[in-house]
């Protein structure tokens, strides 16, 4: 794993992350002096489930997946991280172990923030505790939406919603010309909690509606139609 010092562009990204910007410029600069940017290649693991969470992380670029593996060895994709932002902060602050594995899907640049260093600075700035809690609670919103979708929406709605959301977070159209692509179909099926058979049936329905092209690579053909099907 290669590493380099932080650039001014990295500082710019960091300054937009609420968990860090809440510390104020001086404290944040002190914290960042101890950090470096690590480059990870596709397939590498950033951390494994049950490792002690000594760090939380800032994703600068690239694409990660968070995976839960059952005691029978079956993998479930819990989330794809594709946007710059912080993750693993809740388990890190609580001094727990990571509940999932984090694997690189597309080459990444990541900053690891040591838990002890962050909490040490936070102790000297207790007025920002509310901002830190707010940052943790954004993950609560994520899980609330996940549970709602799993309990109350149909597979075809979940696929449509996933494709729209993934493209939005990607920031560019995934239409076969930009070089960007959706994750593999089986990864998407795992991520949204659908069996491969149901996933294939639902894709055929979306294709018949003219909303997507299903193969060999997924493409959105009619975004408005897809949004209607997501409702």
């Amino acid at each position, binding site marked *: 794993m290669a590493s380099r010092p932080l650039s001014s562009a990295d500082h710019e990204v960091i300054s937009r992350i609420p968990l860090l910007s809440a510390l104020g410029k001086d404290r944040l600069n002190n914290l960042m002096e101890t950090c470096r940017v690590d480059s990870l290649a596709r397939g590498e693991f950033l951390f494994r489930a049950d490792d002690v969470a000594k760090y939380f992380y800032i994703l600068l670029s690239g694409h990660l997946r968070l995976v839960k593996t059952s005691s*029978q060895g079956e993998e479930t994709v819990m989330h794809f991280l594709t946007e710059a932002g912080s993750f693993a902060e809740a388990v890190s602050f609580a001094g727990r172990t990571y509940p999932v594995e984090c694997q690189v899907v597309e080459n990444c640049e990541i900053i690891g923030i040591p838990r002890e260093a962050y909490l040490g600075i936070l102790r000297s700035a207790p007025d920002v505790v509310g901002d830190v809690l707010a940052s*943790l*609670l954004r993950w609560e919103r994520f899980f*609330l939406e996940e*549970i709602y979708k799993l309990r109350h929406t149909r597979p075809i709605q979940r696929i449509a919603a996933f494709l729209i959301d993934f493209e939005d977070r990607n920031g560019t159209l995934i239409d076969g010309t930009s070089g960007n692509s959706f994750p593999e179909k089986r990864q998407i099926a795992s991520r949204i909690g659908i069996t491969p058979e149901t996933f294939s049936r639902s894709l055929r329905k979306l294709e018949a509606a003219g909303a997507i092209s299903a193969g060999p690579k997924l493409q959105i053909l009619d975004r408005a139609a897809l949004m209607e099907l997501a409702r």
Partner: protein
Amino acid sequence: MLDLFQCLTTTEFFHGNFTMRDIDRISGVLQSGRYFRNWPQDDILELASLCTWVRYEPDTVMIRAEDPASALFLIVNGHVELSYTDGDGKDGVIDLLGDGQLVGECALAPEACYAVSIKTLDATTAIRIDGVAFADFLSAHFDRALTMMSVVTERLCQMLRQTEELKCRSAAQRLGIYLLADAVPVGDAHETPLTMEKSALARKIGMTSETFSRALKKLSEHGVSQHSNGHVIRISDTELLAEWCGLSSNETWEEEANGFKTAV
């Protein structure tokens, strides 16, 4: 816990509901619960001074999603239903909570709004903790702030497990695991008493009443039968059922089942 509430004598009114202050009694309840049990007595008393008793009738909305988050609530007695509203305004129940559970943690974040709506299912007594005052308290007590971060983390980990279970297991498997977690040996079998209505249990595990009935029928193929008008579920062979539900080994399935029950 309801007796404790009924024996209180000082009253005031809050949001149209019957409420009262009683620092000593509130601190006793806070200290006996899992969230604050390790706090020093002085901190417990200070926290209790920020609290009021509140009592809600059944079917009362305690918290409305997207309203400004002004308070946390510790459920002392009763059951509440959490529902989530999506971007299109459709809503659905995502959890049921009962005694000892804390809700509305987002009131600790500056200018936050509630993420879910919370409605009482039966008469519910709770301790209301003022959000702004509690946030100020945490700013002055860093170790207590760490405790609250752990509370939020624990909630997130539970939601992660719940998400995983919803993704990976069928309705019948989820019901089977839930029943296994509460099963007690009776003769040469195990029995699980159902402590809530089947419709409520179905919602808690994330399925409709119809799916619940189908799941019970499916489980009957694996040694699960209903007794006492459906209030007691008998499991003829817990090991076989655990294996069918996808729990790992004989040594660890009980732990896994309990983890699942906590998650849902």
